[in-house]
């Protein structure tokens, strides 16, 4: 009952194959990516706003695109079972949202520590502060230092491309780390958007676990005497040094991922109008809202540039320093109360008085372009900028 | 000086109860003469083997 798919060169699928324009939701875009990713196994647990995407992936299993799929008992169990499946040497997928992310938190550093190329989608929503199912991306702040590579999708097209490409980036022998692909829930998952899709009869080559920098956990790969994720807790210097050097290697692997991210995602950041004195730096849905604000400000004669941050980990430190070098005002709109992107950017650039922290919306509030525009106009007045 | 276990070869019948009771792997082994033999370098001196030997062929000792 499955449409015959043929394995194709990833470069061809990503860059050269014909693309068909479709009008689909972000959740559907996620399933379209998984359909072409030659995934062996997916595990699901329901949570709003992730559920629809994992229903659709269940349908893919029923149609024969995946070899195994089940609904697990909670998110910690999902992420643990996905880890087990990945140890076994296959390609896996799962997704979650907000409180589910926090419930499963213990497993994310385990994935990175174990060097598993797991791809997981996060449909960000509020967590209990107080509870909200609405779009908000505070959970990303909590995952910044788990060792995972993190991409932030602006729209359904980004979500499709980033998930499909994440497999190839994650499975590079010199990278071999988990990748989380984040999108702001509802805004991306539950709205329809134009997405350009490569043909559905093409799929990525299957994952080759023999190219991994760590042995596959299948009793076929010598040495047999291998402990995965060893508890390096002996109280002696060698244990500390082994733990520290392994940890450093994970951070180094993320740095080595940069060239692959540049190649496949076309850069860790995207800049438009780089010479503008006023810049908006944003990630996720805030980028789309900023584009609208920039258009309207231009009509009023205010020239504003845009830095879209696509890769959150590894963080594009150098790229952001050079993109903001000549800016006199840097505006960072965010869909969370904590302002994690603002902290990240401020920690790498000079002269932080240039930074306007916000606007920030949360708890399900939207970010109308007028909000961004008025914040920028106020800042221009306060700083006495000439525009 | 370390504690270990000494085998009285005259009393040992090779029943292997001590081997099945030792928490360490490959520390008590069965010789070709069907008597047990202790690797005293790796014996932790718990004396569980002494406690189960039906012939009292094993004794606490030291090296």
């Amino acid at each position, binding site marked *: 009952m499955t449409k015959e798919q043929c394995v194709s060169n990833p470069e061809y699928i990503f860059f050269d194959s014909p693309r068909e324009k479709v009008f689909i939701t972000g959740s559907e875009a996620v399933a379209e990516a998984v359909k072409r990713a030659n995934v062996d196994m997916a595990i699901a647990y329901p949570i709003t706003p992730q559920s629809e995407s994992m229903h659709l992936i269940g349908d893919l299993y029923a149609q024969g695109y995946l070899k195994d799929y089940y609904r697990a008992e909670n998110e910690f169990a999902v992420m*643990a079972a996905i880890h087990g499946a990945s140890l076994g040497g296959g390609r896996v997928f799962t997704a979650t949202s907000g409180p589910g992310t926090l419930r499963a938190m213990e*497993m994310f550093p385990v994935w990175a520590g174990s060097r598993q190329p797991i791809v997981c989608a996060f449909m960000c929503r509020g967590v209990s502060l107080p509870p909200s199912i609405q779009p908000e991306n505070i959970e990303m702040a909590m995952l910044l230092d788990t060792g995972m590579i993190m991409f932030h999708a602006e729209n359904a097209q980004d979500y499709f491309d980033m998930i499909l490409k994440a497999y190839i980036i994650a499975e590079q022998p010199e990278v071999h780390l988990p990748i989380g692909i984040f999108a702001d829930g509802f805004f991306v998952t539950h709205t329809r958007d134009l997405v350009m899709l490569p043909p559905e009869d093409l799929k990525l080559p299957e994952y080759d676990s023999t190219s991994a920098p760590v042995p596959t956990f299948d009793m076929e790969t010598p040495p*047999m005497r291998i402990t995965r*994720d060893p508890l390096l807790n002996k109280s002696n210097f060698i244990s500390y040094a082994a733990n520290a050097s392994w940890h450093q290697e994970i951070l180094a692997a993320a740095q080595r991922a940069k060239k692959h991210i540049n190649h496949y995602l076309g850069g860790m950041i995207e800049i438009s109008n780089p010479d503008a004195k006023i810049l908006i730096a944003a990630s996720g849905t805030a980028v789309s809202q900023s584009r609208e604000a920039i258009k309207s400000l231009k009509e009023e004669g205010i020239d504003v540039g845009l830095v879209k941050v696509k890769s959150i980990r590894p963080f594009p430190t150098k790229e952001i320093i050079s993109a903001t070098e000549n800016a006199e005002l840097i505006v960072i709109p965010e869909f969370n109360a904590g302002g994690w992107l603002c902290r990240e950017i401020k920690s790498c650039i000079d002269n932080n008085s240039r930074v306007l922290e916000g606007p920030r919306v949360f708890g399900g509030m939207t970010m109308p372009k007028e909000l961004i525009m008025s914040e920028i106009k106020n800042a221009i007045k306060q700083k006495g900028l000439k525009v | 000086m370390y504690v270990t276990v000494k085998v009285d070869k005259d009393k040992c019948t090779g029943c292997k109860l001590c081997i*099945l009771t030792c928490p360490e792997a490959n520390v008590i082994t069965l010789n070709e003469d069907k008597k047990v033999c202790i690797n005293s370098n790796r014996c932790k001196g718990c004396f569980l083997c002494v406690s189960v030997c039906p012939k009292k062929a094993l004794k606490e000792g030291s090296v």
Partner: protein
Amino acid sequence: MSVRNITPVKEFEDILPKEYKDLVNKGPFNNKKSVDDLGTFKEIIEEHPHCAGCGVSLGIRLALASLPSPEDSLVVGTPGCSFFALSQSAVNYSNTAFGNQNAVATGLKRMLQIRYPDKHKDVIVMVGDGGIADIGLDLTLHSWFRKEKITTIMLDNEVYGNTGGQESGMSMKGRVLNMAPTGKKFDKIPVFDMAEVSGCVYGARVTVANPKKVGQVVRNAILIAREIGPTYVQIFTPCPTNMKFPPDQTIKIAKEAQKDQYSYKEFMTDEVAEYLKNI
């Protein structure tokens, strides 16, 4: 795997340690061994840092000597004392977060079935009482409800050993332990009975005072899990360090327990009984 996978080429033979060469030449890989053969073959466990007289390390040693196919066995564990001997064994061993072992084993077993459809890859969970009865109870029960074909072995020392002797759900009622300064207020969690009602097709409750029985039930449990469904073995492995008895008393304590909370118990479905007749 085949023992050929680990056999060194002639040129490297002289630089490999004796333990490695013994494992290839006198080990249990592709060379069926059991508890009865202990003392006459090279065991897959190497030197480990368990305390003298440790019941857990004895339980692990007996269980690992009973693997029907060590060359295709994978052990999933959880942090705690059991880690120390298991991480020194010549089978693939995974140890991730506390209490997630049956979920990790589920994913692993299913992926190995996808990748090796024509082979038996035995996935065995071997963890302490805290990992199963307390922090990992939900994930353990769910793996049984789902009928995952894995063997779960509890090494029950009735205490949290590695963290320093705290009360666990499997501790005896009334026992004074760390975090139970006035004695434990409730009975041992009936995990063995829960296994039967939760979908395990075979279960056995034994102690390290009966090594041959341990060998027999572990072997049966693994063979049954291959063909029929989830199986559970609960082994009493007393802890001299935290229960504060001399290390040469471990077997005596286990024997006493056989008259009390650890009387021999076994359950099996009709299908399993039929299957056991034929092996």
